[in-house]
Protein backbone atom coordinates (compact mmCIF):
# COMPACT_ATOMS: atom_id res chain seq x y z
CA UNK A 1 0.00 0.00 0.00
CA UNK A 2 1.98 2.99 -1.19
CA UNK A 3 -0.59 4.76 -3.38
CA UNK A 4 -2.94 7.31 -1.95
CA UNK A 5 -2.25 6.23 1.64
CA UNK A 6 1.52 6.51 1.24
CA UNK A 7 4.03 4.57 3.37
CA UNK A 8 1.61 4.68 6.32
CA UNK A 9 -0.51 2.27 4.32
CA UNK A 10 2.05 -0.43 5.08
CA UNK A 11 1.48 0.03 8.79
CA UNK A 12 -2.30 -0.40 8.56
CA UNK A 13 -2.34 -4.22 8.91
CA UNK A 14 -0.13 -3.90 12.00
CA UNK A 15 -2.37 -1.16 13.42
CA UNK A 16 -5.45 -3.33 12.86
CA UNK A 17 -3.82 -6.36 14.50
CA UNK A 18 -2.78 -4.31 17.54
CA UNK A 19 -6.21 -2.72 17.89
CA UNK A 20 -7.82 -6.18 17.78
CA UNK A 21 -5.37 -7.29 20.48
CA UNK A 22 -6.19 -4.27 22.64
CA UNK A 23 -9.93 -4.81 22.17
CA UNK A 24 -9.56 -8.40 23.38
CA UNK A 25 -7.59 -7.10 26.36
CA UNK A 26 -10.34 -4.55 27.01
CA UNK A 27 -13.00 -7.27 26.87
CA UNK A 28 -11.43 -8.96 29.88
CA UNK A 29 -10.06 -5.96 31.74
CA UNK A 30 -11.78 -2.72 30.86
CA UNK A 31 -14.85 -3.00 28.58
CA UNK A 32 -15.41 0.75 28.65
CA UNK A 33 -11.96 1.38 27.18
CA UNK A 34 -13.69 1.24 23.80
CA UNK A 35 -17.02 2.58 22.60
CA UNK A 36 -17.94 1.52 19.05
CA UNK A 37 -19.23 4.94 17.94
CA UNK A 38 -16.14 6.65 19.29
CA UNK A 39 -13.96 4.04 17.59
CA UNK A 40 -15.71 4.64 14.27
CA UNK A 41 -15.23 8.41 14.54
CA UNK A 42 -11.57 8.06 15.48
CA UNK A 43 -10.78 5.62 12.69
CA UNK A 44 -12.64 7.65 10.07
CA UNK A 45 -10.70 10.72 11.18
CA UNK A 46 -7.58 8.64 10.66
CA UNK A 47 -8.61 7.64 7.16
CA UNK A 48 -9.52 11.20 6.27
CA UNK A 49 -6.18 12.36 7.63
CA UNK A 50 -4.33 9.92 5.39
CA UNK A 51 -6.23 11.21 2.37
CA UNK A 52 -5.64 14.86 3.33
CA UNK A 53 -1.98 14.06 3.94
CA UNK A 54 -1.64 12.39 0.56
CA UNK A 55 -3.22 15.39 -1.15
CA UNK A 56 -0.86 17.81 0.63
CA UNK A 57 2.30 15.69 0.42
CA UNK A 58 3.25 16.80 -3.08
CA UNK A 59 3.07 20.48 -2.16
CA UNK A 60 5.01 20.01 1.07
CA UNK A 61 7.67 17.95 -0.70
CA UNK A 62 7.94 20.58 -3.44
CA UNK A 63 8.34 23.32 -0.81
CA UNK A 64 11.01 21.31 1.03
CA UNK A 65 12.84 20.60 -2.21
CA UNK A 66 12.77 24.26 -3.15
CA UNK A 67 14.18 25.21 0.27
CA UNK A 68 16.80 22.46 -0.10
CA UNK A 69 18.23 24.51 -2.96
CA UNK A 70 19.28 27.11 -0.37
CA UNK A 71 21.02 24.61 1.98
CA UNK A 72 24.28 25.53 3.67
CA UNK A 73 25.69 21.98 3.41
CA UNK A 74 24.89 18.59 1.93
CA UNK A 75 24.59 16.03 4.69
CA UNK A 76 23.92 12.94 2.56
CA UNK A 77 22.62 9.53 3.59
CA UNK A 78 25.14 8.26 6.16
CA UNK A 79 23.73 6.30 9.11
CA UNK A 80 24.47 9.13 11.51
CA UNK A 81 22.56 11.50 9.26
CA UNK A 82 19.47 9.35 9.77
CA UNK A 83 19.95 9.47 13.52
CA UNK A 84 20.55 13.22 13.51
CA UNK A 85 17.53 13.79 11.27
CA UNK A 86 15.33 11.74 13.59
CA UNK A 87 16.44 13.59 16.73
CA UNK A 88 16.16 17.00 15.07
CA UNK A 89 12.76 16.16 13.63
CA UNK A 90 11.60 14.96 17.05
CA UNK A 91 12.81 18.25 18.54
CA UNK A 92 10.82 20.09 15.87
CA UNK A 93 7.82 17.89 16.60
CA UNK A 94 7.99 18.89 20.26
CA UNK A 95 7.77 22.59 19.39
CA UNK A 96 5.15 22.07 16.71
CA UNK A 97 3.10 20.06 19.17
CA UNK A 98 3.58 22.55 22.01
CA UNK A 99 2.51 25.35 19.69
CA UNK A 100 -0.40 23.17 18.62
CA UNK A 101 -1.66 23.34 22.20
CA UNK A 102 -0.78 26.94 22.98
CA UNK A 103 -1.86 28.81 19.84
CA UNK A 104 -5.50 28.49 18.90
CA UNK A 105 -4.86 28.53 15.14
CA UNK A 106 -2.80 25.35 15.45
CA UNK A 107 -5.04 23.95 18.18
CA UNK A 108 -7.99 24.14 15.77
CA UNK A 109 -6.17 21.64 13.62
CA UNK A 110 -4.84 19.44 16.42
CA UNK A 111 -7.84 19.36 18.75
CA UNK A 112 -9.58 16.44 17.08
CA UNK A 113 -6.73 14.16 18.17
CA UNK A 114 -7.75 15.00 21.74
CA UNK A 115 -11.52 15.21 21.46
CA UNK A 116 -12.18 11.57 22.30
CA UNK A 117 -12.89 10.82 25.95
CA UNK A 118 -11.25 7.46 25.36
CA UNK A 119 -7.57 6.63 25.30
CA UNK A 120 -6.88 3.60 23.21
CA UNK A 121 -5.07 2.66 20.02
CA UNK A 122 -7.91 3.96 17.87
CA UNK A 123 -7.34 7.37 19.48
CA UNK A 124 -3.83 7.31 18.03
CA UNK A 125 -5.32 7.30 14.54
CA UNK A 126 -7.67 10.15 15.32
CA UNK A 127 -5.65 12.65 13.34
CA UNK A 128 -6.23 16.03 11.81
CA UNK A 129 -7.63 16.74 8.36
CA UNK A 130 -6.42 20.32 8.40
CA UNK A 131 -2.73 20.17 9.29
CA UNK A 132 -1.77 21.46 5.87
CA UNK A 133 -4.22 24.36 6.07
CA UNK A 134 -2.87 25.27 9.50
CA UNK A 135 0.67 25.27 8.01
CA UNK A 136 1.94 23.02 10.80
CA UNK A 137 4.51 21.56 8.40
CA UNK A 138 6.65 24.71 8.55
CA UNK A 139 7.97 23.49 11.92
CA UNK A 140 9.29 20.33 10.32
CA UNK A 141 10.82 21.21 6.96
CA UNK A 142 13.42 23.85 7.87
CA UNK A 143 16.24 21.30 8.49
CA UNK A 144 16.55 20.97 4.71
CA UNK A 145 18.34 24.32 4.95
CA UNK A 146 21.02 22.57 7.01
CA UNK A 147 21.38 19.99 4.27
CA UNK A 148 19.09 17.14 5.31
CA UNK A 149 17.50 15.59 2.25
CA UNK A 150 13.73 16.26 2.06
CA UNK A 151 13.04 12.55 1.54
CA UNK A 152 14.98 11.70 4.69
CA UNK A 153 13.00 14.21 6.72
CA UNK A 154 9.72 12.85 5.45
CA UNK A 155 10.87 9.31 6.26
CA UNK A 156 11.89 10.10 9.85
CA UNK A 157 8.66 12.06 10.30
CA UNK A 158 6.77 8.93 9.24
CA UNK A 159 8.77 6.80 11.67
CA UNK A 160 7.96 9.27 14.45
CA UNK A 161 4.26 9.09 13.64
CA UNK A 162 4.27 5.30 13.62
CA UNK A 163 6.19 5.26 16.93
CA UNK A 164 3.45 7.31 18.56
CA UNK A 165 0.78 4.75 17.71
CA UNK A 166 1.57 2.19 20.40
CA UNK A 167 1.77 4.69 23.27
CA UNK A 168 -1.98 5.39 23.06
CA UNK A 169 -3.03 2.65 25.41
CA UNK A 170 -4.03 1.99 29.00
CA UNK A 171 -3.02 -1.65 28.66
CA UNK A 172 0.64 -0.86 29.38
CA UNK A 173 1.23 0.72 32.76
CA UNK A 174 4.86 1.71 33.19
CA UNK A 175 8.03 0.57 31.46
CA UNK A 176 11.49 0.12 33.00
CA UNK A 177 12.90 3.35 34.41
CA UNK A 178 15.57 3.95 31.71
CA UNK A 179 12.89 3.71 29.01
CA UNK A 180 10.58 6.09 30.87
CA UNK A 181 13.51 8.49 31.32
CA UNK A 182 14.31 8.80 27.62
CA UNK A 183 11.31 7.82 25.55
CA UNK A 184 7.71 8.90 25.31
CA UNK A 185 5.72 6.03 26.78
CA UNK A 186 2.07 5.13 27.36
CA UNK A 187 2.34 6.52 30.89
CA UNK A 188 3.78 9.86 29.76
CA UNK A 189 1.31 10.21 26.92
CA UNK A 190 -1.71 9.38 29.09
CA UNK A 191 -0.77 12.51 31.01
CA UNK A 192 -0.70 14.47 27.77
CA UNK A 193 -4.23 13.39 26.83
CA UNK A 194 -5.68 14.09 30.26
CA UNK A 195 -7.73 17.12 31.25
CA UNK A 196 -6.91 16.95 34.96
CA UNK A 197 -5.41 20.28 36.02
CA UNK A 198 -2.20 18.63 37.13
CA UNK A 199 -1.80 17.14 33.68
CA UNK A 200 -3.02 19.91 31.35
CA UNK A 201 -0.56 21.04 28.68
CA UNK A 202 2.18 18.65 29.67
CA UNK A 203 4.31 16.03 27.90
CA UNK A 204 4.33 17.30 24.32
CA UNK A 205 6.97 14.78 23.25
CA UNK A 206 6.83 12.73 20.09
CA UNK A 207 9.32 9.92 20.56
CA UNK A 208 11.76 11.37 23.10
CA UNK A 209 10.45 12.65 26.45
CA UNK A 210 13.77 14.38 27.05
CA UNK A 211 12.45 17.54 25.37
CA UNK A 212 9.76 17.93 28.04
CA UNK A 213 12.29 17.36 30.77
CA UNK A 214 14.57 19.93 29.16
CA UNK A 215 11.96 22.62 28.53
CA UNK A 216 10.00 22.33 31.78
CA UNK A 217 6.80 20.67 30.54
CA UNK A 218 7.34 17.20 31.93
CA UNK A 219 4.75 15.74 34.30
CA UNK A 220 4.97 12.13 35.44
CA UNK A 221 1.75 10.17 35.77
CA UNK A 222 0.63 10.18 39.39
CA UNK A 223 -0.80 7.11 41.05
CA UNK A 224 -3.29 9.31 42.91
CA UNK A 225 -4.57 11.20 39.84
CA UNK A 226 -6.34 8.95 37.37
CA UNK A 227 -6.41 10.66 33.94
CA UNK A 228 -9.70 12.01 32.61
CA UNK A 229 -9.29 12.05 28.87
CA UNK A 230 -10.53 14.45 26.23
CA UNK A 231 -10.67 18.23 26.08
CA UNK A 232 -11.60 20.79 28.70
CA UNK A 233 -14.99 21.39 27.06
CA UNK A 234 -15.85 17.87 25.96
CA UNK A 235 -17.16 17.58 22.43
CA UNK A 236 -20.29 15.58 23.30
CA UNK A 237 -20.78 14.38 19.74
CA UNK A 238 -19.69 11.47 17.58
CA UNK A 239 -20.39 13.46 14.41
CA UNK A 240 -17.38 13.01 12.14
CA UNK A 241 -17.49 16.39 10.42
CA UNK A 242 -18.10 18.21 13.69
CA UNK A 243 -15.14 16.41 15.23
CA UNK A 244 -12.95 17.44 12.30
CA UNK A 245 -13.96 21.08 12.06
CA UNK A 246 -15.64 22.22 15.31
CA UNK A 247 -12.77 24.35 16.58
CA UNK A 248 -12.27 26.04 13.20
CA UNK A 249 -15.97 26.86 13.29
CA UNK A 250 -15.81 28.18 16.84
CA UNK A 251 -12.68 30.21 16.14
CA UNK A 252 -14.23 31.76 13.04
CA UNK A 253 -17.36 32.65 15.03
CA UNK A 254 -15.26 34.25 17.78
CA UNK A 255 -13.21 36.13 15.19
CA UNK A 256 -16.32 37.55 13.54
CA UNK A 257 -18.00 38.51 16.83
CA UNK A 258 -14.95 40.02 18.53
CA UNK A 259 -14.24 43.74 18.63
CA UNK A 260 -11.65 44.70 16.01
CA UNK A 261 -8.78 45.12 18.46
CA UNK A 262 -9.28 41.60 19.79
CA UNK A 263 -9.89 39.70 16.56
CA UNK A 264 -6.30 38.60 16.01
CA UNK A 265 -6.01 37.41 19.60
CA UNK A 266 -8.74 34.83 18.96
CA UNK A 267 -6.43 33.29 16.36
CA UNK A 268 -3.06 33.49 18.07
CA UNK A 269 -3.72 33.45 21.81
CA UNK A 270 -4.00 30.23 23.80
CA UNK A 271 -7.17 28.10 23.63
CA UNK A 272 -9.70 29.27 26.19
CA UNK A 273 -8.61 32.89 25.98
CA UNK A 274 -11.42 35.43 25.61
CA UNK A 275 -11.30 39.20 25.59
CA UNK A 276 -13.90 39.45 28.36
CA UNK A 277 -12.44 36.71 30.54
CA UNK A 278 -15.59 34.63 30.24
CA UNK A 279 -13.72 31.42 29.41
CA UNK A 280 -10.98 29.44 31.02
CA UNK A 281 -7.40 29.03 29.90
CA UNK A 282 -5.14 26.34 31.26
CA UNK A 283 -3.62 28.81 33.71
CA UNK A 284 -7.08 29.77 35.00
CA UNK A 285 -8.06 26.13 35.39
CA UNK A 286 -4.89 25.40 37.29
CA UNK A 287 -5.49 28.33 39.61
CA UNK A 288 -8.99 27.02 40.42
CA UNK A 289 -7.97 23.44 40.90
CA UNK A 290 -4.59 23.51 42.53
CA UNK A 291 -4.54 21.10 45.39
CA UNK A 292 -2.88 22.27 48.60
CA UNK A 293 -0.33 19.50 48.39
CA UNK A 294 0.12 19.63 44.66
CA UNK A 295 3.74 20.11 43.67
CA UNK A 296 4.66 23.34 41.87
CA UNK A 297 4.00 23.17 38.15
CA UNK A 298 6.29 24.30 35.38
CA UNK A 299 4.81 27.07 33.27
Amino acid at each position, binding site marked *: *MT*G*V*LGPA*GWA*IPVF*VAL*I*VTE*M*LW*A*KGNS*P*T*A*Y*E*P*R*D*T*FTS*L*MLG*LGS*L*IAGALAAGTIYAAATWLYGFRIATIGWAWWAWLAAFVLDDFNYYWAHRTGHRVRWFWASHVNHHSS*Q*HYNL*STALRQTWTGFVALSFVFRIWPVLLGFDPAMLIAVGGINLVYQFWIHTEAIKRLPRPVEAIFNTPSHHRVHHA*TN*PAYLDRNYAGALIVWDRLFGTFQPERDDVRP*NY*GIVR*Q*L*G*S*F*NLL*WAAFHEWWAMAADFLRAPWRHKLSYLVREPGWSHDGSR*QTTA*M*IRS*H*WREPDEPPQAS
Partner: protein
Amino acid sequence: MPGDITAEAQTAALELAVALAAIIFLVVLAMAIRLGGDPRIRSEDEARRLAETSLAGFHPVEVGLDRAGIGALLRDGQGRIMLIRRHGVHFVARLLDGHAGSRLNQNFLIVASGERRFGSITLDLGAKAQVWVSHLRRLGA
Protein backbone atom coordinates in the same frame (compact mmCIF):
# COMPACT_ATOMS: atom_id res chain seq x y z
CA MET B 1 -0.22 8.77 -19.40
CA PRO B 2 -3.97 8.12 -19.19
CA GLY B 3 -3.34 4.42 -18.54
CA ASP B 4 -1.09 5.22 -15.60
CA ILE B 5 -3.63 7.63 -14.16
CA THR B 6 -6.35 5.01 -14.44
CA ALA B 7 -4.16 2.40 -12.75
CA GLU B 8 -3.28 4.85 -9.95
CA ALA B 9 -6.93 5.72 -9.47
CA GLN B 10 -7.80 2.03 -9.28
CA THR B 11 -5.02 1.43 -6.73
CA ALA B 12 -6.18 4.40 -4.67
CA ALA B 13 -9.79 3.20 -4.77
CA LEU B 14 -8.70 -0.29 -3.72
CA GLU B 15 -6.63 1.08 -0.83
CA LEU B 16 -9.48 3.20 0.43
CA ALA B 17 -11.89 0.27 0.15
CA VAL B 18 -9.52 -1.96 2.15
CA ALA B 19 -9.02 0.75 4.81
CA LEU B 20 -12.77 1.30 5.06
CA ALA B 21 -13.37 -2.45 5.35
CA ALA B 22 -10.80 -2.58 8.16
CA ILE B 23 -12.61 0.22 9.98
CA ILE B 24 -15.97 -1.51 9.66
CA PHE B 25 -14.41 -4.77 10.83
CA LEU B 26 -13.01 -3.13 13.96
CA VAL B 27 -16.23 -1.35 14.83
CA VAL B 28 -18.27 -4.53 14.32
CA LEU B 29 -15.77 -6.42 16.46
CA ALA B 30 -16.11 -3.84 19.25
CA MET B 31 -19.89 -4.26 19.10
CA ALA B 32 -19.73 -8.05 18.86
CA ILE B 33 -17.61 -8.45 21.98
CA ARG B 34 -19.80 -5.86 23.72
CA LEU B 35 -17.27 -3.18 24.41
CA GLY B 36 -18.74 0.01 25.76
CA GLY B 37 -21.31 0.18 28.50
CA ASP B 38 -24.36 1.78 30.00
CA PRO B 39 -23.06 4.37 32.45
CA ARG B 40 -25.28 5.85 35.14
CA ILE B 41 -24.76 8.53 37.73
CA ARG B 42 -25.32 6.52 40.88
CA SER B 43 -25.45 9.27 43.46
CA GLU B 44 -25.53 13.02 43.99
CA ASP B 45 -21.93 12.84 45.13
CA GLU B 46 -20.96 11.30 41.82
CA ALA B 47 -22.87 14.04 39.99
CA ARG B 48 -21.00 16.65 42.05
CA ARG B 49 -17.68 15.05 41.23
CA LEU B 50 -18.53 15.00 37.52
CA ALA B 51 -19.49 18.66 37.62
CA GLU B 52 -16.34 19.72 39.45
CA THR B 53 -14.26 17.72 37.02
CA SER B 54 -16.01 19.30 34.04
CA LEU B 55 -15.63 22.95 34.98
CA ALA B 56 -12.93 24.39 37.18
CA GLY B 57 -14.40 26.48 39.97
CA PHE B 58 -17.91 25.02 39.73
CA HIS B 59 -18.90 23.81 43.17
CA PRO B 60 -22.49 22.54 43.24
CA VAL B 61 -24.77 23.46 46.11
CA GLU B 62 -27.82 21.65 44.73
CA VAL B 63 -28.21 18.53 42.60
CA GLY B 64 -31.17 17.30 40.59
CA LEU B 65 -30.38 13.73 39.64
CA ASP B 66 -32.39 11.84 37.06
CA ARG B 67 -33.99 8.79 38.66
CA ALA B 68 -32.34 6.48 36.15
CA GLY B 69 -29.03 8.30 36.48
CA ILE B 70 -28.76 9.26 32.82
CA GLY B 71 -28.16 12.92 33.58
CA ALA B 72 -28.31 15.65 36.17
CA LEU B 73 -28.77 19.33 36.76
CA LEU B 74 -26.51 21.09 39.22
CA ARG B 75 -26.57 24.62 40.60
CA ASP B 76 -23.63 26.41 42.19
CA GLY B 77 -23.49 29.27 44.67
CA GLN B 78 -23.40 31.85 41.87
CA GLY B 79 -26.68 30.56 40.45
CA ARG B 80 -25.03 28.92 37.46
CA ILE B 81 -26.71 25.72 36.28
CA MET B 82 -24.89 22.84 34.70
CA LEU B 83 -26.46 20.07 32.66
CA ILE B 84 -24.71 16.70 32.61
CA ARG B 85 -25.71 13.95 30.23
CA ARG B 86 -24.31 10.69 28.95
CA HIS B 87 -22.10 10.56 25.92
CA GLY B 88 -21.16 7.00 25.04
CA VAL B 89 -19.70 5.51 28.19
CA HIS B 90 -18.74 8.91 29.56
CA PHE B 91 -20.55 12.06 30.61
CA VAL B 92 -20.42 15.56 29.19
CA ALA B 93 -21.44 18.83 30.78
CA ARG B 94 -22.57 22.25 29.68
CA LEU B 95 -23.37 25.42 31.59
CA LEU B 96 -26.86 26.54 30.63
CA ASP B 97 -27.36 30.14 29.64
CA GLY B 98 -31.16 30.25 29.52
CA HIS B 99 -34.33 28.26 29.87
CA ALA B 100 -35.43 28.52 26.24
CA GLY B 101 -36.47 25.11 24.96
CA SER B 102 -36.90 23.65 28.43
CA ARG B 103 -40.32 22.22 29.26
CA LEU B 104 -41.96 20.60 32.26
CA ASN B 105 -44.16 17.52 31.91
CA GLN B 106 -45.21 16.43 35.40
CA ASN B 107 -42.03 14.99 36.92
CA PHE B 108 -40.14 15.09 33.67
CA LEU B 109 -38.10 18.10 32.70
CA ILE B 110 -36.92 18.46 29.13
CA VAL B 111 -33.73 20.50 29.22
CA ALA B 112 -32.28 22.03 26.06
CA SER B 113 -28.64 22.96 26.09
CA GLY B 114 -29.08 25.60 23.43
CA GLU B 115 -26.36 23.85 21.47
CA ARG B 116 -27.65 21.93 18.46
CA ARG B 117 -25.15 19.08 18.55
CA PHE B 118 -25.31 18.74 22.31
CA GLY B 119 -29.07 18.44 22.07
CA SER B 120 -31.65 18.18 24.81
CA ILE B 121 -32.38 15.57 27.44
CA THR B 122 -35.47 14.48 29.35
CA LEU B 123 -34.74 14.13 33.05
CA ASP B 124 -36.99 12.38 35.53
CA LEU B 125 -36.45 14.59 38.57
CA GLY B 126 -39.51 13.54 40.52
CA ALA B 127 -40.98 16.22 42.77
CA LYS B 128 -37.83 18.33 42.30
CA ALA B 129 -38.72 19.02 38.67
CA GLN B 130 -40.80 22.06 39.65
CA VAL B 131 -37.95 23.50 41.67
CA TRP B 132 -35.54 23.14 38.77
CA VAL B 133 -37.94 24.87 36.41
CA SER B 134 -37.80 27.85 38.74
CA HIS B 135 -34.01 27.76 38.81
CA LEU B 136 -33.88 27.59 35.02
CA ARG B 137 -36.29 30.53 34.66
CA ARG B 138 -33.95 32.66 36.74
CA LEU B 139 -31.35 32.22 34.00
CA GLY B 140 -33.59 34.14 31.64
CA ALA B 141 -34.63 33.23 28.13
